């Protein structure tokens, strides 16, 4: 084959527009977010103030990083309901071990705890063939139990004076923690879309049989993915402890639900193999904006949960419209 593919320019341009059109058609979470932002601007004067927006970013960044971890696991066709507990455990250990005297060591401890638990989950799922749900259900109870045992129920205060530094710092008014979230999202996006490992994650998530038969190392791909997710969760655990200024025993409780919901709202298929990191980020923002807005509007905390629940249902209902329209397209047989 010596002939090279030469395509006239207009076609390229038409292709690009078609690609943009296809992309735009699938961005329903983005549209939900835009509608939410408009509603927020109309109903609350306080929403679009720099202070509130910085606050919003601060509130969503930690759960945003946890959602990135959840996104990776869901891409492989798994689910991780231990994220909240593992986040809590890495937070209290980062603040408590070595008395929390050194920030760098605290980060290293948090990340190592997350990675170790990720490795255990990954080993059980990949090499022992256990269901991710059950494995992480066990880990959820185990990690939370360890948190309570270690803290005896009260917050652990670190000694280092600059422990809160990262979480409170801002660059041009933007919280550093938000920039970290964005950077990690880009890293996860790069890994999933541009690397051989990412290719393997998608293939394993879509069909383990086809991936195995095609010479993809299914087990090690799964293990590596769980470890990567663990690293993200551990780091998020440190950030939360840093923001609060202490390792609190209840930190991260029920984060797993928000993370799973954000991943699904972002268009990632729970069956695995399909989804983009951009969707996971948008999904997190949708949650962040609605929580923030409900607070600004003085909606009672009890009703807030109902609103969030309704939002999840509406958003996943929208995904069914999107997917059924695609499915209805004929296959050329």
């Amino acid at each position, binding site marked *: 084959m010596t002939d090279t593919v030469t395509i006239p320019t207009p076609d390229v341009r038409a292709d690009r527009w078609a690609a943009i059109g296809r992309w735009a058609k699938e961005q329903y979470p983005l549209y939900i977010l835009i509608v939410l932002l408009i509603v927020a601007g109309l109903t609350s004067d306080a929403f679009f103030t720099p202070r509130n927006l910085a606050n919003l970013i601060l509130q969503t960044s930690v759960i945003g990083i946890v959602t990135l971890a959840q996104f990776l696991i869901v891409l492989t066709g798994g689910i991780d309901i231990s994220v909240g507990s593992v986040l809590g455990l890495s937070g209290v250990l980062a603040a408590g071990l070595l008395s929390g005297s050194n920030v760098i060591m605290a980060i290293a401890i948090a990340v190592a705890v997350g990675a170790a638990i990720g490795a255990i989950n990954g080993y059980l799922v990949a090499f022992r063939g256990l269901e991710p749900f059950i494995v992480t259900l066990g880990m959820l109870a185990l990690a939370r139990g360890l948190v309570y045992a270690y803290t005896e129920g009260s917050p652990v205060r670190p000694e280092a004076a600059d422990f809160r530094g990262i979480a409170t710092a801002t660059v041009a008014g933007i919280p550093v923690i938000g920039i970290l979230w964005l950077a990690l999202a880009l890293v996860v996006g790069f890994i999933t879309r541009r690397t051989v490992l990412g290719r393997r994650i998608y293939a394993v998530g879509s069909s383990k049989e086809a991936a195995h038969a*095609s010479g993809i190392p299914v087990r090690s791909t799964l293990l590596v993915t769980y470890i990567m997710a663990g690293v993200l969760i551990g780091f998020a655990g440190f950030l939360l402890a840093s923001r609060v200024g202490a390792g609190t025993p209840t930190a991260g409780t029920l984060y797993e639900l928000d993370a799973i919901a954000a991943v699904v709202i972002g268009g990632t298929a729970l069956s695995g193999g399909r989804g983009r990191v951009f969707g996971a980020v948008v999904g997190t923002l949708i949650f962040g904006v609605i929580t923030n807005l409900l607070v600004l509007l003085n909606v009672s905390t009890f009703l807030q949960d109902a609103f969030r629940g309704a939002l999840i249902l509406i958003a996943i209902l929208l995904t069914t419209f999107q997917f059924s329209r695609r499915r209805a397209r004929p296959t050329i047989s």
Partner: protein
Amino acid sequence: MSSHDDKRSPVPAFHLDGVSKSYPGVHALRDVTLEGYPGEVLAICGANGAGKSTMARLLAGQETPTSGSVRIGSHGQIRKPADAEAAGVLLMHQEPLVIEDFTVEENVWLTSLSSADGVKAWGTVRRDRGARTREALDAVGLSDLDPRTPVRSLGPGPRQMLALSRTSVNHHKVLLLDETTASTTEEHFRDVLELVDRERAAGVCVVFVSHRMPEVFAMADRIAVLRNGQLVDVVRTADTDPDEILTMMIGEAVSALEPFDMKPDPAADPILEVRGLSSGSAHDIDLDVRPGEIVGIYGLVGSGRSSIARSISGHQDRRTGTVRVRGRPIPSGSPRRALEKGIAYLSEDRRREGFVPAFTNALNLTLATPGQDSRWGVINRRAEKARVATLLKRYQVKGGAETMTRSLSGGNQQKVCIAKWLEATPEVMVLDEPTKGIDVRARLNIYEIVRDLATGGKGVVVVTSEAEEALKLCSRILVLRDGAVVGTYDPLTSTTDDLIRASLGGDIS
């Protein structure tokens, strides 16, 4: 066969009147008018994409026509599956409709669930059900199958026959067989034939959708040929021959494939050496493949043919024996390491193992070799795009890089799967039923690809359940029976009869 035509009832069993069906951008059927009569077998032939399956779906009420009308018997218009079922239409799919977690018996009676016949919540199983299940299974050649076996443990062939066994416990006037024989093999052929004869004698109108000429000519009274959604002609089987039908199907005469006469250098060292291999139902297999040789492995289901293919390529564990490619041993049970050592396996089960369903053509084509365009694990997208474009062109895959592979026809899917493997440049390519469920033209494409491989000095092993394919494609054929090689045949001096006899063991008439 022609006596049926004479007794034909004047009331049609089904009637398609000026039926068109279009999907966005595709005219699947255009102005088709066709009738089928009780007690006749009507074959619907056409290449992939000609509209055969659309027609079957219209008759079963799964699709409504864009224009025109579909009537079954005296029932009137068919608009939904319930209409068709009430009118007595039974559809048998290309993929057997069975529930894996149910037993064989429960699957035989599956369709009676929808009519609540004997399976009402407060109902009890009919007393004679056991005996009727046995009869139904015997009638399709599954007499040694225990009705309590879970279907999960059955292979594709028995599953399809199991689905077909429902014809004897069901009341129907029109039986649609939509490429039903694609996953069955030759030994079930006679069972299908008998089943169709029984149905015909019982006054059922059998609509047989297929592109396999031997089956069409063995069964059909009339043949309707579709091309690009249009009805080309309806002819009586007695008045035509396979060549004419094939010509009508693809609109041009097919050049017959010459037998493969390239003989490998007998002095050359074998590229693949298998010694004392036992795995699954195969035992003590010795096999040599020299460069440029296409070795066929022919046998019935359960003869061990797939076990050989899967175990030499690392897809199945070996009990004993060694496999060497160019002298290097291939470890057991790891497709990945087998591929690294130069042996690739094209799976018989394309949908499950061949390609990743959520992937586009581009991603599936590079699935086995993502590293080729990457450095430090990072993929160079421009290089990959260029490689994919070349591959699509070289293997004549319909659809672009961004088309989902699962939306392609079987033939194009198979080309993607083969291309995926050839990108890994294996020394030995093992192909398991490479043309299963694939139409005439794509089949020729695939034969060409396989021969090019051999001509290029690679070793090829083709596992097939079609004697004719083995004779056309291979340079040497091993026949298996009960897990052992019972003979080696030269395709230039053998006939399909020789192979079938050897595979069955002893004389058949």
